[in-house]
């Protein structure tokens, strides 16, 4: 009975709606064009929304925004062995941004590494990876960038060192090391894996950091095999070595959690990777996060480039480790636990943490020197933090405590020297 009443009520209002609606008299042609217009607007809006997501996942913002500057207005400084690159403004400003660019120009930059004027671009802009981005995705990102408010900001020109500032060299580089090509799906794998591969190899440009480069910035070909970040005292660990950051032995859910929150019970992201998580990866959709995780997990295992040689346990080493243990007790144990077990969700475990045992101690040294907070994400707005010890502990003591951490609770790793700590005090 009640339902009947409600139905009648709704029917009544609907009728009222029809009665109150102004009479529409459109010619059939106008009606059609109006419908097309609505469809177009919806399509354009849809493309922009997609573009916004893709720009996030490509982390365009990370490089195209100066330190505390306006989003996408450029001015970010990349200090490399090739020279100092200052990233361009990619807002829609016609004079200082890319307001005069066309879809075609944008595609050529991403896909062919060429600017609007046809000049070759330096691969500091990771077109070696972006070349695999589809035309459809490129157009969507462009539509999004063009929809942003124009920011008038002229950035200083990059200062490229001699001889790299001699453009013909770029041509040679492109000839030898770069071939444009879109992502070709592996038909033996499922769609999810291919989506992950597309994102990792293309837009995600993971290999821009996670590979070894020589002084010319040329990747030595071991894809995702880990390497020192150019112009920075951070080491991007190998994503294929079980000594480093391979996730072959992780459950998919853990990999997803690391991508989206920056920390799991097994690992926590630090330094530049923490920024990548908060600026970009945390926004991965559930489906894309699973796809990326699936692809990363499937990467064939490789030997690490160098293995940490654990020290033979001489009396001298034992004495050093004991000293390190005392420092650990004073400064680290409170948070990381007396067996390096950490506290899930707050402080990472150090026992079994490959971030502290891998051959290169660079990242662990930096974490001790500079401290820092775990990445801020939508689910973690108030992360716990690590104090900086650069002002508190001299190089020798940091070396001792890290050597202890690398050789306790089942961990085995090379001893750290005060010289290694000193090197990390300098540099970006």
């Amino acid at each position, binding site marked *: 009975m009640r339902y009947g009443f409600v139905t009648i009520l709704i029917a009544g209002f609907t009728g009222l709606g029809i009665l109150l609606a102004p009479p529409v008299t459109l010619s059939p042609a106008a009606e059609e064009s109006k419908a097309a217009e609505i469809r177009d607007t919806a399509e354009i809006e849809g493309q922009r929304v997609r573009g916004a997501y893709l720009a996030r996942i490509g982390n365009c913002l990370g490089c195209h925004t100066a*330190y*505390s500057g306006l989003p996408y207005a450029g001015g970010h400084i990349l200090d490399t062995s090739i020279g100092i690159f200052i990233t361009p403004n990619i807002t829609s400003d016609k004079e200082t941004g890319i307001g005069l660019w066309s879809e075609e120009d944008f595609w050529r930059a991403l896909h062919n590494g060429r600017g609007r004027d046809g000049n070759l671009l330096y691969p500091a802009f990771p077109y070696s990876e972006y070349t695999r981005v589809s035309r459809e995705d490129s157009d969507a990102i462009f539509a999004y960038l063009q929809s942003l408010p124009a920011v008038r900001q002229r950035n200083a020109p990059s200062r490229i060192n001699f001889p790299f500032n001699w453009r013909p060299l770029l041509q040679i580089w492109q000839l030898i090391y770069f071939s444009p090509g879109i992502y070709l799906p592996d038909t033996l794998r499922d769609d999810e894996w291919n989506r992950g591969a597309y994102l990792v190899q293309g837009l995600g440009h993971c290999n821009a950091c996670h590979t070894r480069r020589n002084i010319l910035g040329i990747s030595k070909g071991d894809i995702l095999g880990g390497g020192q970040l150019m112009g920075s005292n951070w080491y991007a660990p190998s994503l294929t070595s079980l000594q480093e950051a391979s996730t072959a032995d992780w459950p998919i859910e853990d990999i997803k959690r690391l991508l989206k929150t920056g920390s799991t019970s097994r690992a926590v992201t630090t330094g530049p990777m*923490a*920024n990548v998580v*908060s600026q970009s990866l945390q926004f991965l959709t559930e489906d894309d996060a699973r796809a990326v995780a699936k692809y990363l997990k499937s990467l064939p295992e490789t030997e690490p480039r160098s293995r940490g040689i654990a020290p*033979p*346990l*001489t*009396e001298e080493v*034992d004495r050093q480790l004991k000293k390190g243990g005392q420092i650990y007790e004073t400064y680290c144990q*409170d*948070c990381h*636990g*007396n*067996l390096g*077990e950490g*506290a899930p*969700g*707050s*402080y990472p475990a150090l026992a079994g943490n490959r971030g502290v045992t891998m051959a290169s101690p660079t990242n662990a040294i930096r974490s001790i020197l*500079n*401290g*820092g*907070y775990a*990445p*801020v994400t939508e689910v973690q*707005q*108030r*992360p*716990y*933090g*690590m*104090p*900086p*010890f*650069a*002002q*508190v502990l001299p190089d020798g003591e940091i070396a001792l405590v890290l050597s202890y951490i690398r050789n306790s609770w089942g961990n085995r790793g090379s001893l750290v020297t005060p010289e290694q700590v000193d090197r990390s005090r300098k540099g970006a």
Partner: protein
Amino acid sequence: MNPSILIRSAQIALLLIGLPAVAHEIPDTTEERVKACIICHGPEDKKGRDEYYPRIAGKPEGYLFNQLRNFRDGRRHYRPMALLLEGLPDAYLWEMAGYFASLKQAFPPPEPMRASSPKVKTARELIEHGDAARNIPACVGCHGKDLMGIAPFIPGLIGLPRVYIMAQFGNWQHGALMRGRTPDCMSEIAKKLTTEEVSAVAMWLAAQPVPESDWRHAGAGVELPKRLARRCASIIPQKSNPK
């Protein structure tokens, strides 16, 4: 088998038996979250290398928030603070500022000063009266009659190490502090002071004892004269408190 390995293994085994992991609950508090700050800004008596770090407990919340934000965004240049705060949202910085503002902590004992020093006269003159001829306002004009600061944005000047005050003046004079921000009242004032005057003021301020009743300055906010407020771009009026 190498005997030292055996010994080591035995030691590890003993350790594992003797020291079970103490499952420690991590308190879900602000106090736990600002442990990273305490290593330098802790309540302990500061000696030697730690002397430089300023006291932040009990300083006005708005002042602390502004400084945190300035460090994070590179406007107040100090690399260790910038690295530590990288990426933290404003709301979290407010929380940290509020925590330290609410602390009531013992002040360090005053640093020694010879009362007969001619510097005392110089310092007291500048602190209480400024120098109208050189357009230098009195310290008490902004920082409160008792120099303990004025909520919410002006810091107290007592209880800071002499070397810290000197260093801040040096930075203001050379534009290293609050770079790229004009006008910046303290930078303008610092540039008008001679080295001797800076040294005298720093010595006098660091030598003042703080009565226990003043450990936490919770006094109501006082309006600054508009003319002064305008000169200090470092005082950022908060349109909306994100808390």
